[in-house]
């Protein structure tokens, strides 16, 4: 474990601001940037990086969702249902993280991220909305007001078993790799389950707090979480996600998708570079 110095704390604080703003913008949680930074650039043990990252992921989820609650953008029912899968996956991931070779999972994650990026790029114009506002969204569907177009967006949830499976895998990867898992859920919910990107990102960000907690508790219990460094990372991420959330409201869905695909490809390269060693 590296020694806590003012300069190290400052570096992690700034890294937190950057990953927090990117995370809020993309609905990813920010861990995809923080884990490789702490592990590859600062040379933290992988478990220490994952533990700090999971803590910031929880903070991001809580603050972003607190700001969004009441706007009906978060699909609470779908979120609660899928949390059964993400929390279960995260619990199993947190336990097995101590026994499985990380490099295997990192390579697998790289392949999944690349596939998802390709899907995002081929489905840029898909809207996934029912234009008749009086249409019945069903028990799990949703309805929210989109500021961008000034219309009420209604959608139904399709292929629920796929959403549940993706959520379980996302939860598993979340606690194994120290990320939120939105990177897996959001594209699948958007591309195949009929959920508009904005609602998918908001619901995912909401679920991520519970998902990451299931994993973070295990790292915390094992003493792999350095409180002082987690604190500065959390504070940086809080500031960054606040900024990213404000900017995110003005960003268009199309550019969010393109940006997200690019991020996924960068993650693929980083995962292979790390897993290949």
């Amino acid at each position, binding site marked *: 474990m590296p020694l*806590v110095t003012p300069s190290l704390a400052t570096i992690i604080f700034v890294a937190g601001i950057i990953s927090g703003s990117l995370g809020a913008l993309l609905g990813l949680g920010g861990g995809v940037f923080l884990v490789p930074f702490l592990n590859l650039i600062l040379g933290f043990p992988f478990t220490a990086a994952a533990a700090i990252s999971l803590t910031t992921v929880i903070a991001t989820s*809580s*603050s972003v969702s607190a700001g969004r609650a009441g706007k009906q953008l978060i699909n609470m029912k779908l979120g*609660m249902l899928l949390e059964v899968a993400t929390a279960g996956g995260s619990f199993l991931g947190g336990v097995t993280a101590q026994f499985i070779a990380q490099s295997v999972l990192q390579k697998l994650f790289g392949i999944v991220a690349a596939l998802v990026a390709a899907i995002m790029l081929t489905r840029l114009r898909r809207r996934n909305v029912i234009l008749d506002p009086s249409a019945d969204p069903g028990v799990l569907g949703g309805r929210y007001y989109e500021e961008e177009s000034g219309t009420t967006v209604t959608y139904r949830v399709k292929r629920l078993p796929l959403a549940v499976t993706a959520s379980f895998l996302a939860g598993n990867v979340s606690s194994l790799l120290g990320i939120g898992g939105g990177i897996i859920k959001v594209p699948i919910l958007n591309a195949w389950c009929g959920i508009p990107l904005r609602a998918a990102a908001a619901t995912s960000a909401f679920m991520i707090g*519970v998902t990451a907690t299931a994993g973070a*508790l295990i790292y915390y219990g094992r003493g792999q979480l350095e409180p002082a460094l987690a604190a500065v990372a959390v504070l940086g991420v809080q500031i960054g996600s606040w900024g990213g959330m404000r900017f995110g409201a003005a960003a268009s869905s199309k550019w969010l998708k393109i940006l997200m695909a690019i991020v996924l490809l960068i993650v693929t390269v980083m995962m292979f570079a790390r897993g290949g060693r």
Partner: protein
Amino acid sequence: MTAEPQPQSASQRLERAVGVVLRAGVTLSTVCLAVGAVWALAAGESGGARVLLQIGIVVLLTTPVARVVVSIAQYVSESDWPFATLTTIVLVELLASAVAALLFNKKL
């Protein structure tokens, strides 16, 4: 059709309650972590700073758990049994993680 506004307002009440829990948890943990971090960096990792940092981390980790508990209470009060059950399963999974954390801690 007359029953239509009922689930809508129930979901809005849940959103508000969840929003309050999340905001309270984030505010409390952020204040503890900020004061603790500044204290630790200014005066070295003293006992007080360490305690504040630990409180901040624990509050942060229990905020999503509290949000799940509030959701269960809300679904039970609305007699929405399918979702009360699903949310209870989530709580059990979180408690399983806490138990696993304690077991791992004892082994080391």
